[in-house]
């Protein structure tokens, strides 16, 4: 069960080898989390993350495999993860994502479809099953990893950002649908984060490390805020950026 500070005892991570997710799992395990289920594509990397969770205090950490390009399999994957938890699940982190290679893929129909499947269709399908299970349980929390890129889509990453924008907006409605059910959904909107996903990408202002994001997530879980911005100042930065004229936006964003 979750405690008064929003610290869960049991946790399912969809996209469990994500660097940000791993940093959050480390902090959660150091606090109260005992049961961790990590679901993802790469068995080796998941095992590594599971071992890390145990090092940080989890009593059981197990893994579940799935293919994020196949949304029809999402329901099964979520079911397998909940079964592996073996009891009520307090927090589900949806961290599935693929940054892709925009310039090479933007004129490639198959790759563009893959970006939409992994970043949008699979998470949406998984959230339907997560929602059903948590509502039946009467409590629980969902943390969906969006991105500040979802607030205003940049030319240099529109396949990724556009899918995240869809997911982010869908989750606002999903969160509203959960009012009064005992279940809540929070949306994490990190800025540019140094991680394996962004290796080689040029850094931009307000870049943070994964531990800083995890720290912000812990505070966000305690406060219950619907949107968790990391770093928090990006809430205001993007309020401005969102309203820039397109021409100015391109100058700012396409560097």
């Amino acid at each position, binding site marked *: *069960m*979750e*405690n*008064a*500070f*929003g*610290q869960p*005892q049991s946790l399912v991570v969809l996209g469990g080898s994500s660097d940000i997710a791993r940093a959050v799992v480390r902090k959660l395990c150091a*606090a*109260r989390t*005992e049961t961790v289920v990590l679901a993802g594509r790469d068995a080796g990397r998941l095992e590594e993350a599971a071992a890390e969770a145990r090092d940080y205090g989890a009593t059981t950490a197990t893994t579940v495999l799935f293919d994020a390009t196949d949304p029809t399999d999402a329901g099964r994957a979520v079911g397998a993860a909940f079964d592996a938890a073996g*009891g*009520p699940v307090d927090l589900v982190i949806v961290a599935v994502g693929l940054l892709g290679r925009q310039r090479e893929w933007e004129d490639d129909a198959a790759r563009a479809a893959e970006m939409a499947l992994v970043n949008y269709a699979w998470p949406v399908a998984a959230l339907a099953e997560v929602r059903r299970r948590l*509502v*039946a*349980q*009467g*409590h629980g929390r969902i943390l969906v990893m969006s991105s500040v890129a979802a607030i205003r889509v940049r030319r240099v990453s529109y396949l990724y950002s556009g899918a995240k924008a869809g997911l982010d907006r869908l989750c606002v409605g999903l969160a509203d649908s959960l009012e*009064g*059910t*005992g*279940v809540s959904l929070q949306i994490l909107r990190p800025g540019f984060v140094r991680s394996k996903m962004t290796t080689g990408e040029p850094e931009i202002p307000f870049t943070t490390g994964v531990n800083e994001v995890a720290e912000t997530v*812990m*505070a966000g879980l*305690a*406060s*219950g805020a619907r949107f968790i911005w990391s770093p928090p100042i990006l809430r205001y930065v993007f309020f401005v950026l969102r309203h820039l004229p397109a021409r100015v936006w391109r100058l700012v964003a396409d560097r």
Partner: protein
Amino acid sequence: MRALAGWGRTAPSHAEVLTVATEEQVLAAFATGRSVIARGLGRSYGDAAQSGGGLVLDNRGLDQVGDIGPDGVVRLGAGVSIDDLLARSIPEGWFVPVTPGTRQVTIGGALAADVHGKNHHVEGSFASHVRSVRLVTPTGVCTVGPDRDPSLFWATAGAMGLTGVATEVELTLTSIETDQVLVDTDRYDDLDAVMAAMREGDARYRYSVAWVDCMSRGRHLGRAILTRGDHARAEDLDRPRLAAPGPARLGVPFAAPPGLLNPWSITAFNEAWFRMAPRHREREPQPLGRFFHPLDGVRDWNRLYGPRGFVQYQFVVPDERDGVVRAAVERLAGARVPSFLAVLKRFGPADPAPLSFPQPGWTLALDLPVGPASLPGILDELDELVAEAGGRVYLAKDARLRPELARVMYPRLAEFAALADTIDPERRLVSDLARRLRLREG
């Protein structure tokens, strides 16, 4: 289906709420096979009276108040509140033997938490004044008491509803001549002074409690107001009366914005509270409600803590480990974690209940708003200190203890869980608290 949380308004969960008025209805609830827990007026601070995805039985339908016998014995439905009871009993010259700081608890809830009051050091906790209980369990209905199936009776006291649903309680009331308490008040400039005064003088008083300011630091660390007294006799007053306390005049209509209670506002409140108390005053008559139930002055005061809610941290440590009390006050004052006046009290002997909170020594209770990032860690550190000292935290207040430490603090938990399994082998009696601390697993 309804979202339920404790008085601290943290960690809500959703459950189906059924108001029960008969034992048959309780048995029918068990027959559904779902998880079941009883709930009264929801004054437990944490997650004791909720059970996510299950059935929560509202005991307010069990509302019969019997006639009070010449010996003060009365049969009460478990859903009768202390407020309901006092409205009836005070005019007849009877008071509850033990009362917490609010009248808004049910008799069933008072037994489930084995509540204590300002007289614990002389008269023990609530269950010590109970003659018998009708208890509905998944395996049947039984009557238990200190001399009838005592092991199940004591297992029920303090077990937060995990041995069954109490439907009726037979309680021995305390005889009173007036509705006033004669109160001695003293102000102390630091924690050591008030603790010395309590150690030395509490035995002379039936009721005793101190309010400690956890926001003052340095020389005035833990300055306190000590109030002690006993019921006024008819000859003590010019015009003795027996009137029940009235309802709260003030209320909080909606949740305050976050941050209303912050280090500055709380420091200012504590300063005013401290300065308003007399340095020394003797035998001041105070109405029962004002002396015993300060929490009932303002309805829904928990909303002042805003949408994130608050936790109450209450622990007890043995007499010789009073250093833990000082360490807790120092740690919280040093971190500037905002805390309203804390309550300090000395406990007398424990009762035989395995999960009852009180044990001889010092207890300190603090209200702490959820918010400061350092708070979870500080409370975890204090848990370690308390456990190491042979003390414990109060399950009726808890919303954040580690399950491992619950076993250290309540060493008879395994014995309790084994007994609970005999009356509920399928473990239907489950609350969020029980899940979080694994209380049914022993």
